[in-house]
């Protein structure tokens, strides 16, 4: 910004205070700020409009402020309306699509992986949309309302994939995702929606895509993770500190692009790595990270790279089964103890 700019241009967002809010409220604020700032941003999805404001109430009040023109309830046709979002994006709009649950993103699969993901490489036309996908489980919602299907998209060239674990990142990464000129899939964590609160900066607090964050520094072992599992890892780290094990927790934040530099910096420091996420371990994003570590940091490794993830089964509904399915602080701590004892 030049000095003359700074004299004449008023800040676009009113200077409100930072405040404590939930992960969900942070997303809501990010969306709202960005819609106020940029008239090309609009929302599409099932049940997001009117008084209802979406299955999780992220867009409560949005219809009233922005009108139905910018907050569009869609018929239950993910394939078609994600395709339409691509068309809008080609002509300069920035649609933010809510799929009601991340599980339903598979219904729009072709519009994402075949159309939007390939367009820029093929004929240089940008497709700047964001799909917001409420993902993850732990809330007894069974095989179709608990999925973590980010691996499908990380494997697909042309997409970006984001998975914030804190209110600050939820807002900050969402702002960046909306401003990005590429199709971005934004995995929100349902279990964090209302359970996690933090101080979130007011106004523009954009966080760059592709930069991991050290959620907790440590020297003995690196736990690489993202989403709700970050908090399980930190809880495990706290528990293990009492046992004299100093755990570093890396929160990836963005899965594509993946911040391999940050991962390698941590692992070359600690010499040990556990990769963990709630998604199916088999063929999950953790496999890529483990493979990168062994390729790039082989000589620094003092122990095998371990992975802890969901089991290779549909996410079961019943509480004892779902608990057995998912990684948690206890399982993470146990894996860490094994690795440290190696």
């Amino acid at each position, binding site marked *: 910004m030049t000095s003359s700019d700074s004299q004449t241009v008023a800040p676009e967002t009113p200077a409100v205070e930072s405040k404590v809010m939930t992960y969900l409220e942070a997303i809501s604020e990010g969306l709202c700020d960005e819609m106020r700032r940029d008239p090309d941003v609009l929302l599409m999805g099932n049940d997001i409009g009117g008084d209802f404001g979406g299955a999780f109430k992220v867009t409560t009040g949005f219809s009233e402020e922005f009108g139905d023109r910018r907050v569009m309830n869609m018929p239950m046709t993910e394939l078609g309306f994600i395709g339409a979002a691509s068309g809008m994006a080609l002509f300069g709009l920035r649609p933010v699509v809510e799929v009601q649950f991340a599980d339903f993103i598979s219904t729009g699969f072709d519009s994402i992986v075949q159309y939007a993901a390939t367009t820029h490489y093929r004929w240089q036309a940008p497709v700047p949309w964001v799909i917001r996908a409420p993902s993850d489980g732990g809330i007894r919602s*069974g095989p179709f309302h608990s999925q973590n299907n980010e691996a499908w998209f990380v494997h697909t060239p042309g997409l970006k994939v984001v998975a914030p674990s804190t209110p600050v990142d939820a807002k900050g990464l969402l702002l960046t995702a909306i401003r990005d000129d590429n199709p971005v899939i934004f995995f929100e964590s349902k279990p964090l929606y209302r359970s996690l609160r933090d101080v979130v900066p007011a106004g523009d607090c954009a966080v760059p895509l592709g930069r991991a964050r050290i959620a907790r520094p440590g020297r003995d072992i690196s736990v690489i993770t993202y989403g709700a599992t970050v908090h399980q890892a930190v809880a495990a780290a706290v528990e293990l500190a009492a046992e004299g094990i100093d755990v570093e927790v890396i929160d990836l934040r963005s899965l594509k692009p993946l911040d391999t530099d940050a991962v390698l910096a941590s692992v070359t420091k600690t010499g040990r790595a556990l990769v963990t996420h709630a998604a199916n371990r088999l063929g999950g994003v953790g496999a890529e990270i483990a493979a990168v570590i062994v390729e790039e940091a082989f000589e620094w490794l003092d122990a095998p790279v371990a992975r802890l993830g969901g089991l290779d089964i549909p996410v079961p509904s019943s*509480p004892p*089964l779902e608990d057995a399915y998912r990684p948690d602080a206890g399982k993470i701590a146990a894996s860490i103890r094994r690795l440290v004892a190696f």
Partner: protein
Amino acid sequence: MASQLTNGRRRELHYWMRLTRTLDDRIIKLWQQGRGVGATFNQRGHEAISVGAGAALGPSDVVAPMHRDLGCYLLRGMTPERLLANQLGRATSVTRGRDGNLHGCGDLDLNIIGFISHLPHSLPVTVGAAMSFTYRNEPRVAMTFVGDGSSNTGLFHESLNLAAVHNAPFVLIVENNQYAYSTPLSQQMVIDDIAVRGRAHGVRAEIVDGNDLEAVYEVTYDAVERARSGGGPTMIECKTMRMLGHAIHDGAGYVPPDLLADWAKRDPIDRFEATLLAGGLATQEELDQVADRCRREVAAAVEYAEGSEWPDPATILDGVYAE
């Protein structure tokens, strides 16, 4: 056309509707008391459709009910015990705690196909079931249910077209209840009748009052028997109203109260009971006895389900694959 229903059968269907209502009301109460697990879908208003259409099938026919068709599961022989145990995630449930609420409540011994959340995947699957009957020259019919919301999906159209091209012995019940979750018909489509969407594929399409048990039964019965005798698929649009929220947590504040008040007058059970009384097919005392019986059965089911054990985590990997 003369009704296909005997008086005895009428009383049976009344029982299934009442049992559906009683079980549904009980489930709502359980959830309100914090005794539920996960989500649960409301049934009120849909009883005449799920019971009336379901009853038109023969025992060897196949049905894939959806999330508003508790009545159909019940009358096809899935007990309140098993259904409630599924809602509560118990080991004794249909899915042994793998799937929740009405999801996955399939049982091939009862010729019931379970559904998945992604709507409307029971539709192509049921068309495929119908095609298998043609393939084997079996005189069986396959039927499924979808909502107005599902009629917008591509899958709805691909499936109906396939049924038409293969002249499949298939019946589709469309439960047009005015809303898909919070989204009213006016935001879903501009057509007046979903029935035109069947005709777009050359599928015969009928429209019926979905709160009139006998009307639903009759039009479905004709469609089923036509399908059985090689007459091909039929789609039946049942006009009704979802009288409660989409699911337990949904207060449905977005529905105009007048609309609900209007439809409340056409409650399918009240209406059918009035017919039974007026026609001398039942006395109020008999109706009260049915209600009592349903309450007892539901109470027993609650006891059974809540008394059932949780699934053993050691079995978590069992059954991902057929061996």
